[in-house]
């Protein structure tokens, strides 16, 4: 995809810069002339939303940090000062808090798109793995950010989640104390979480650059899963992809604005408006909604497996559910990339989505009775999808006929539309 550059500096200044640091050339080749498949649909606009959200989070976060104090006795009130006294502080904070949720909404859609259209398959394994790394960094960043307001859920969420690490034999307690900076969640914890919460987004930005670099080397996939073969298969990034991305992003921003301005606390928990109190445990400790499926899988392991007790088992399952994503490119044995031509995979994919939503709901319920059984079934399907269904489907599934090229697929579709019209 890279290679030959069509950038032609026109003015003297542009030529002068191009001979010294060809940054305008890089930008032109990457975001203007860069050829993208002509059949990209709106599922391919989530990447643009994610870029926008990363920028929104960093900008609002940098300003919020100017008014925030990471010290346990004043942290809660400093957030309230932002809400009450800082000019438009309420807007910045609600943008940032809801921004985290919308960042995750976008990333889940983006990952779902990748799963559906087989974006992780050769030659895009590194592209996919970098994406999983970004997702992991996002989870760490989001978790530490939720601790900063120092409300009840901040404190108890931090206590529960850092407690997971103590399940590991021998090194567990040491890891937990290292994370906390002590024996319990306290001022050292808050300080280091603030420091890391400020650091990690820039690491995310760095990995995003690698992610986009890898993308521009292999080129984008597309709904047919057929690689680009000729020039007629592609259109230039600008104006085609730019405009489609812009439309996707602005619709996304409308939903985001709906939450910021009309229901800013809908995605939060009321208990986080109560200052942290180490002596008073909330009735139900629930993490942020975007961790709920993993929380459900953690709590689904209520039994011991040989030498592994249920606590360690739960933690292994929870971490395993994300680690397994790294191996996806090699677990899927199918030669066909896109679910469009894989009738069985399509079915199992949508069950996977429904299962993930169900696990999310179960994560918000108390771990008792039927909820536990459902969580166990959900966990079984989650892992079964990757470990059993994916490898076997490639061997047994008969794919539908695949078009010879993107152009053929596009013309076929528009021909059909014309015929039926």
């Amino acid at each position, binding site marked *: 995809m890279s290679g030959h550059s069509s950038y032609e500096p026109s003015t003297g200044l542009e030529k002068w810069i191009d001979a010294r640091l060809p940054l305008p050339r890089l930008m032109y080749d990457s975001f203007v002339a860069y050829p993208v498949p002509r059949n990209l649909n709106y599922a391919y606009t989530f990447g643009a939303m994610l870029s926008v959200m990363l920028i929104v989070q960093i900008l609002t976060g940098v300003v919020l940090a100017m008014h925030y104090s990471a010290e346990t006795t004043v942290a809660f009130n400093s957030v309230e000062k932002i809400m009450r006294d800082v000019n438009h502080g309420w807007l910045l904070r609600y943008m940032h808090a809801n921004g985290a949720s919308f960042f995750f909404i976008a990333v889940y859609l983006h990952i779902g798109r990748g799963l559906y259209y087989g974006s992780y398959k050769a030659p895009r394994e590194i592209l996919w793995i970098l994406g999983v790394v970004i997702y992991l960094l996002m989870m760490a960043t989001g978790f530490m950010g939720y601790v900063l307001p120092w409300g009840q859920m901040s404190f108890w969420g931090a206590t529960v989640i850092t407690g997971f690490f103590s399940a590991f034999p021998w090194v567990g307690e040491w890891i937990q104390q290292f994370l906390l900076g002590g024996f319990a969640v306290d001022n050292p914890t808050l300080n280091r979480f603030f420091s890391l919460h400020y650091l990690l987004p820039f690491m995310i930005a760095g990995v995003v650059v690698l992610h986009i670099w890898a993308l521009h080397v292999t080129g984008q996939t597309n709904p047919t899963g057929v690689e680009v073969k000729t020039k007629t298969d592609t259109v230039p990034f600008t104006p*085609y992809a730019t405009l489609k991305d812009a439309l996707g992003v602005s619709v996304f921003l409308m939903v985001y604005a709906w939450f910021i*301005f009309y229901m800013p606390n809908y995605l939060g928990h009321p208990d986080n408006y109560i200052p942290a109190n180490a002596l008073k445990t909330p009735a139900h400790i629930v993490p942020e909604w975007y961790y709920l499926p993993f929380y459900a899988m953690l709590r689904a392991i209520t039994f011991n497996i040989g030498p592994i007790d249920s606590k360690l088992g739960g933690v292994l399952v929870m971490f395993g559910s994300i680690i397994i994503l790294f191996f996806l490119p090699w677990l899927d044995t199918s030669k066909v990339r896109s679910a469009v031509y894989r009738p069985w995979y399509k079915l199992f994919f949508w069950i996977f989505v429904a299962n993930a939503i169900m696990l999310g709901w179960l994560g918000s319920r108390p771990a008792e009775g039927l909820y536990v059984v459902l969580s166990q079934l959900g966990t079984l399907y989650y892992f079964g999808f990757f470990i059993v269904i994916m490898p076997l489907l490639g061997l047994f599934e008969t794919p539908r006929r695949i078009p010879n090229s993107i152009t053929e697929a596009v013309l076929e579709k528009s021909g059909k539309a014309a015929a039926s019209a």
Partner: protein
Amino acid sequence: MKKLVASILSLGILAGAASIAVAEEGHDLKAAVEHAEKALHYPVLKPKHINWSFAGPFGKYDKAQLQRGLKVYKEVCSACHSMNLVAFRTLEDLGYSEEQVKALASEYEVQDGPNGDGEMFTRKAIPSDHFPSPYPNTEAAAAANNGAAPPDFSLIAKARGVERGFPTFIFDIFTQYQESGPDYIYSLLTGYQEPPAGVEVPEGTHFNPYFIAAKSLAMPKPIEDGQVTYDDGSPQTLDQYAQDVSAFLMWAAEPHLPERKRTGFMVMVFLAIFTALIYVTKKSVYANKEH
């Protein structure tokens, strides 16, 4: 283990038998209390809904109501509940002039210091001060109230919310329901009553089916009909007091709510036009390209 199972079973049977008996008698509230106790799921009753002036996309506070609510807070709640994040100067939001706010603040005494001699002293509050707490510290507050300090009221309207349950919480996204806090406070204040026959409450607590964490709470019924005098002719009833003070506490928790919704409307209009323009542009660019 067997004993445990047996006792759980017999408890269940007892509860089941009891609830059947109650259902026959038609005592719905008692059945609801027992159901909540069995499932450890409170409140016994879901909060009542009030039509708040600040609900919905164009919601704003009713200043007369906030002033009445402030009066209720000052004369009743503030005896036990602090509101330490709210500064007197912000009371101008309620429609008071700078002079009125100064006068209001000067009704309170706050501790200041140390002065040049190293002594702490008390002085009249000024607009930049926050509402002083009725107790010198949390321990004193707890000691005066059976060991549990009354919660601060600055954020109470956002810090309480009864779970809405499926599928209501999905509809809430479209109806913009964000008033579970004030609905809860209103329901709690108007919810005190005698426990239904056969329902026991722990000593020193007061039955209230709307309380979020149990069937009864330590706070006795705080306010009665006619307790606070209104000068604007509004009815001096418990129902009116409860509505007014809930609205006031919502303001205390979210003073920038009207500004937020006003800005939101402008943002939504802008984004709608922007999206429409991009849509038209995109359509014309793609018009001659099959995709």
